[in-house]
């Protein structure tokens, strides 16, 4: 709430000063060295763009070297025959990444706020690979981190339940290998049609101690979440999810990267590029994250995970600073 309020105030202040959130940018982006392209006007994108800009300015990049734009605006610019020529594009979200990947810009493109499967989909559809010209920092957490969290928070759990949909099932092989290595047992079901979800869920819950949610709009969405959370709560099986919204909705735990954390990591990479380093040739996992706990649900399920402690241990395990 505080973050939202801050962003609202920030946007309001900007609007007062400059007549619009996007008009604050002092540099005409023809001369900008960093051009941030957002997929949407929603607060999360503004917030990420602001945090990214602030971090770069803090690191000595003149504010005038940084410009922001929206996908709609950028589409026009690219069509105009006078495309912008920054030193680096930072694409926030799938739409912006999609646009810049399709445009084949001169400057390297760093994609942020993007889930792994969206990025891979964009690469495939344009016949591209991750390179110094097009790279990404994923928004979703590595499976190993999610598994480690399950292990730490529920040491008694032996059986991990997972529901696979069309969008998530390509991660199944990766998860199976990790699960075997960690000594857990995987209870998995593939859901091919939305109407199969209730039965698949009942089956998975029947053989699990913890349910791990992996983003897949066919399975986890605002219409299905009620059934999933209610059923797992009735079965007294904690749901470990991938966003703070799920924790508010009723998931016991989630590990996620906040927009500000994503912005910081993107800023570090951007700074490297500005200083002459190439973009990483492999997409990066998010290097910072939060653990969210729904204390009321945890209490009702008689578990007591400590968000801060879990985050610290996870960071130590991954040897993150």
């Amino acid at each position: 709430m505080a973050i939202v309020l801050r962003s609202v105030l920030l946007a309001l202040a900007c609007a007062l000063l400059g007549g619009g959130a996007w008009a604050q940018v002092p540099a005409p982006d023809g001369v900008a060295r960093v051009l941030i392209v957002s997929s949407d006007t929603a607060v999360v994108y503004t917030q990420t763009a602001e945090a990214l800009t602030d971090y770069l300015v803090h690191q000595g990049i003149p504010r005038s070297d940084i410009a922001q734009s929206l996908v709609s605006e950028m589409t026009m610019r690219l069509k105009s025959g006078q495309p912008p020529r920054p030193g680096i594009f930072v694409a926030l979200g799938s739409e912006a990444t999609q646009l810049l990947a399709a445009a084949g810009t001169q400057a390297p493109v760093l994609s942020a706020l993007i889930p792994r499967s969206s990025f891979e989909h964009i690469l495939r559809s344009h016949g591209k690979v991750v390179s110094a010209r097009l790279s990404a920092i994923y928004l979703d957490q590595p499976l190993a981190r999610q598994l480690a969290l399950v292990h730490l928070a529920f040491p008694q759990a032996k059986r991990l339940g997972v529901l696979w949909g069309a969008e998530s099932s390509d991660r199944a092989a990766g998860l199976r290998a990790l699960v075997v290595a960690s000594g857990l047992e995987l209870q998995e079901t593939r859901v091919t049609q939305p109407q199969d979800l209730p039965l698949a869920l009942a089956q998975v819950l029947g053989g699990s101690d913890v349910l791990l949610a992996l983003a897949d709009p066919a399975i986890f969405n605002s219409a299905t979440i009620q059934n999933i959370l209610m059923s797992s709560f009735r079965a007294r099986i904690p749901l470990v999810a991938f966003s703070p919204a799920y924790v508010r909705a009723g998931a016991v735990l989630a590990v996620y990267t906040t927009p500000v954390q994503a912005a910081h990591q993107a800023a570090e990479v951007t700074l490297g590029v500005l200083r002459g380093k190439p973009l990483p040739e492999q997409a990066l996992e998010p290097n910072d994250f939060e653990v969210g706990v729904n204390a009321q649900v945890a209490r009702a399920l008689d578990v007591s995970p400590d968000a801060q402690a879990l985050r610290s241990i996870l960071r130590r395990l991954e040897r993150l600073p």
Partner: protein
Amino acid sequence: MTGGLLLGNQALAQVDALVSEKDFLSEMPIVLSVSRLPQRLDETPGAVTVLDRDMIHQSGARDVADLLRLVPGFQVSNSFESVAPLVSYHGAFDAYSNRLEVQIDGRSVYSPYFIGSVGPGLETVAIEDIERIEVLRGSNSAAYGARAMLGVINIVTRDTADTLGALGAVTVGENGIRDNLARLGWGDGRGTFRLTADTREDDGLSGSNGQSRVSRINFRADIRPNGVDEVQLRLGAMAIDSGRGMAGESGNALRRFSFDSAYAQLDYKHILSADEDVSLKLSHTQESYTDSFPYALQQLNPIRNYLNDAAYFSSHPFSASDIYNVTGDGTASSDVVTLQHTLRYGDALSLVWGGEYRSERIESAAIYNTDSTFVNEFTRLFGNVEWRLAKNWLLNLGALAEHSSDTADSVAPRLMLNWHVTPGHTLRAGVSKAYRPASNFERYADVRYFWNGHQALQTVRGNSQLQAEELVSRELGYLGEFSNWRMSLDVRLFDEQIKHFIRMQGELPKSYVNDENFAIRGIEYQLKWQPWEGAQLLLNQTYTDITTVQPGDALAAPQLASTLSYAQKLPGQVHVALTHFDSRRWTSFDGNENDAQATRRTDFRLAKAMRWGSRRGEIALVVQNVGSAYSDFKKEFLFHKQAYVTLRLED
């Protein structure tokens, strides 16, 4: 408000079948809001025993009443002599058991007909459809109203999302046991549905006329229109057809009776935030009772000078063809609206409050000697504050104020303090007050028999001057979790002081009076232990001392009752369970001290589960009362050993 500000609306995340950052950044509707998170057992304002689905299933019980043998402090009868099997807590004082509340998914199934009864309500749903039974041991009028004077039985049916697919079950066995069940569950993410039809049939207790059949049909729909709101619809009907009466008792002849009931219930819940929601409940319940037998009036000739209209009957002797049709026919219905608001303020305070309007209608020319309808209206206002005084101290403060169109207004308060001494060890102390206004029958019964327009007899006359029974209950409780030993212990020490106890008294016509004040004191505990893998041991014991001077009522609960149960999972999906019940002499429901009998019963169950792909099945053998027969309800009614086999198939 965050939903709109953060990332458009929820619809954004849904349209796209591809994963995008919106899956990670969008808001989600609050699902597990405050009222959906039940109080922990160590934080409830009183002792609670939960019978979960595994326990219910593994007991092999065919009636909810039988399951309550597993709960400390309960008395149980399998007889249909008072319409349906009965239970009571801390004393089977009367023939119909009217000092307990029974709810099914929040709807009271306490029967206002008779003298008030929990029996028929306990038969409302198939055991297969029950998720769990929460038994609130101890007075709970502060949350559930007058009828919860000694305790509450909350039956929670399974969510329809958990009962998708088809299920069929057949039980056959000795003593005419023949039960059938068919269930179908269907639906998708927006709504799930269930239809269950079942019958339960047996020849009853030997020596009784209790050949009985219960037929039920129940429908439940859970509709999730938008992820925030929840709508549930429940419809059902039940018929009990049984025999009752005694051979040779001309006023209680052997005959068949039927009790039919039907209900509709609509629930709506709207979630305002994780910390606040409101719910609305509407329900209609109706019941009808049909019971009659012929009575040869000729047998009254020797006493016809003592009949009410002696002048007429002394000069008009009855002939052999004068047959009177004695009936107890009648109907009752209730309509209820309940509105409830649940709020949480931070971690320290939460509040449930609301109101209820309840209208009950009873019609019976046979027992009220009038064609008019008795309408009793109750308006209730209730609230409970759960206040975390300090980290390990929780105070529950609640009250229910009831205004009745017929009896005096009352306020039933409760105060309970829970102290988590150390993690896993909780002490509880509290006091509560409850009232039970006299039932319609106790106040207005008027059972008269007329012949040729002349009153021959009046057998029961209600007493409209009756005061409500009052109960002050004090208790001390302890809940312990010994996780290293895989053991848990629940102890309740109770002192229940009853004032103005309502009793039937006198010569014909019998009537009700506010009788003595007395106390029910004692201690009960339940120990659960998993000594090794797959094993579950349960030990309950209850010591009860009822201080009444009336010897029959003093034995309304046995001085000592024990339940010992051992269940073991074995390889090959085999499960065995052995349960032994043992209680000292008690008078069953409304018996007298000469009828008091000890009860000893051992039940055995052996089951094997099977699986073929998605299909599941189970075959189970149950033997109830492996030992010698015991008396139930009446000295002459015997519960003999009975074995039955259940075959269950699920797809």
